[in-house]
């Protein structure tokens, strides 16, 4: 693995520096005799491109990662990167390359602190139904294709936004910065605003949606605040989107005649952090339970009444977020049929924020069946755990992410990225997440 720090004005120039540099002799410069000796021993002296590029990776010899280091854009630290390199045209159409196998092609296990950069020194053709999605959260994913990009598969950064807060389950802090892409488009450090806390002192319902930002991610929604009779209650606020993650969402609250007071723990944590935690015993969850927001990780839930099935179902015991403790939706295995709006996200529950995906191709961008998406999490539509039984007022939806494609020619007819925020829902659902940025531009 070659370590190379990159300092460039834009991400486009950084990709060109890294990618084009990967195919030429790496040994230009001034070295000590020890450096030369060590590189000869490692087989890295005098090579035209690294021996462990993805051309050999595909034959099972090695993985595709050729460089890592610090990425500095326009004078700002943009985190660490891992670069995968493919020399020549790449067509992904093998049944054996669905899903996880491609994870090993393109993505390392470095979580939250690294971006995933992929340089294709040729054309890239992704056939239906191949899927490219990192197995872990990334600051962002960027493909640079030196040729044409034909996309008929699925590329997803849904639930792969980074928790770059340096808190909780984050693997490290990275400050949000403006990310200049190509000199024209710049992803702002701060995305859409999170939905504000929703307060009520009279009977009824309130919630606030997350905002949007030009070229940015979406903010998360507040939780749903339903007050049946009287009191003073507040649902948690959504989180503001960043350049590395859509915003998480705040917790919901549902009470009859008791009051509660929101604190920071009930709000989504900043910089892709945890979802807002629910109210626990008594005031907040006495009658109805309370639902935590989406985030990294998603906030847990508190059920008001004893349930049944696997796990600790005692009244008011903290539950994994929205059923996340189940590997299978045992409550309703047929979810998604009839009036249920599925499929549910029981396995992933409220975990995950929308991430950032950028593709740049010097040739045409085409494709008929493909899809690029980075969507905010829905949490509001679950009949069987919502309402008055256990979930209470639902949490908000997560903010949408970013899907940008930059084409080098006038032919830019490939699929438009989908970057919805999580939906409001219909079961005392929280505020929707704001849409992110899904667009196609000139390179």
């Amino acid at each position: 693995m070659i370590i190379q720090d990159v300092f460039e004005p834009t991400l486009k120039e950084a990709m060109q520096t890294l990618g084009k540099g990967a195919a030429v002799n790496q040994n230009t410069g001034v070295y000590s005799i020890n450096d030369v000796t060590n590189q000869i021993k490692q087989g890295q002296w005098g090579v035209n491109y690294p021996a462990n590029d993805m051309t050999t990776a595909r034959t099972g010899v090695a993985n595709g990662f050729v460089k890592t280091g610090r990425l500095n854009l326009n004078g700002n630290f943009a985190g660490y990167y891992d670069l995968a390199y493919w020399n020549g045209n790449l067509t992904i159409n093998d049944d054996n390359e669905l899903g996880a196998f491609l994870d090993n092609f393109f993505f390392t296990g470095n979580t939250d602190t690294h971006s995933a950069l992929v340089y294709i020194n040729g054309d890239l053709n992704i056939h239906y139904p191949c899927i490219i999605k990192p197995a872990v959260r990334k600051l962002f994913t960027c493909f640079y294709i030196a040729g044409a990009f034909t996309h008929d598969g699925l590329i997803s950064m849904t639930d792969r936004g980074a928790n770059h807060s340096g808190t909780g389950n984050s693997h490290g802090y990275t400050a949000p910065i403006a990310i200049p892409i190509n000199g024209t488009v710049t992803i702002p450090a701060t995305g859409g605003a999170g939905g504000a806390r929703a307060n009520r002192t009279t009977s009824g319902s309130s919630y606030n949606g997350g905002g949007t930002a030009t070229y940015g991610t979406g903010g998360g929604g507040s939780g749903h605040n339903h007050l049946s009779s009287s009191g003073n209650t507040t649902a948690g606020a959504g989180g503001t989107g960043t350049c590395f993650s859509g915003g998480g969402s705040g917790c919901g609250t549902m009470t009859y005649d008791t009051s509660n007071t929101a604190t920071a723990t009930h709000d989504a944590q900043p910089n892709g952090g945890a979802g807002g935690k629910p109210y626990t015993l008594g005031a907040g969850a006495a009658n109805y339970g309370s639902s935590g927001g989406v985030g990294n990780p998603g906030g847990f839930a508190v059920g008001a009444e004893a349930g049944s099935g696997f796990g600790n179902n005692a009244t008011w015991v903290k539950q994994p977020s929205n059923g996340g403790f189940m590997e299978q939706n045992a409550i309703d295995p047929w979810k998604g049929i009839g009036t249920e709006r599925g499929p549910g996200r029981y396995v992933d529950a409220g975990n995950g924020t929308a991430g950032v995906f950028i593709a740049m191709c010097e040739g045409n961008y085409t494709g008929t069946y493909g899809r690029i998406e980075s969507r905010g999490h829905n949490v509001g539509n679950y009949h069987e755990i919502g309402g008055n039984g256990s979930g209470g007022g639902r949490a908000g939806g997560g903010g949408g992410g970013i899907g940008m494609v930059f084409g080098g020619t006038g032919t830019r007819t490939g699929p438009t990225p989908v970057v919805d925020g999580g939906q409001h829902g219909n079961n005392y659902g929280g505020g929707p997440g704001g849409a992110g940025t899904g667009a196609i531009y000139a390179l």
Partner: protein
Amino acid sequence: MKYFIHDHYGTQQTLIDSLPSGYTALDYEHSDTVGIIQSDCGIPIACIPGVVTQLSMQYTNTPTVEWVCVSISHCANWTDVENEFTLIETEQAEAWARNKQWLEDNGHSIPE
């Protein structure tokens, strides 16, 4: 009034061509779109394609009319879109019915 928020690339051209009366089609990437929705409806845009419309949401005995941004990415025609609105309203009404039943079962008054 309902607003149809579509993308910039003609992906929803069939829906645009058959736009029902009472709808205004807005390109999400037009610089005025976000401001129009914010000023006319008071909510952010949550999804593209989507429809920003007023739905009757029953959180208590008396339904509340509120602006909602509804995802219609799975809708092939305007009948599907209208069915989506109905589904959302119906499911919230069902949620209210369960809540109301719980209130009655526990001797609480029913909020109007």
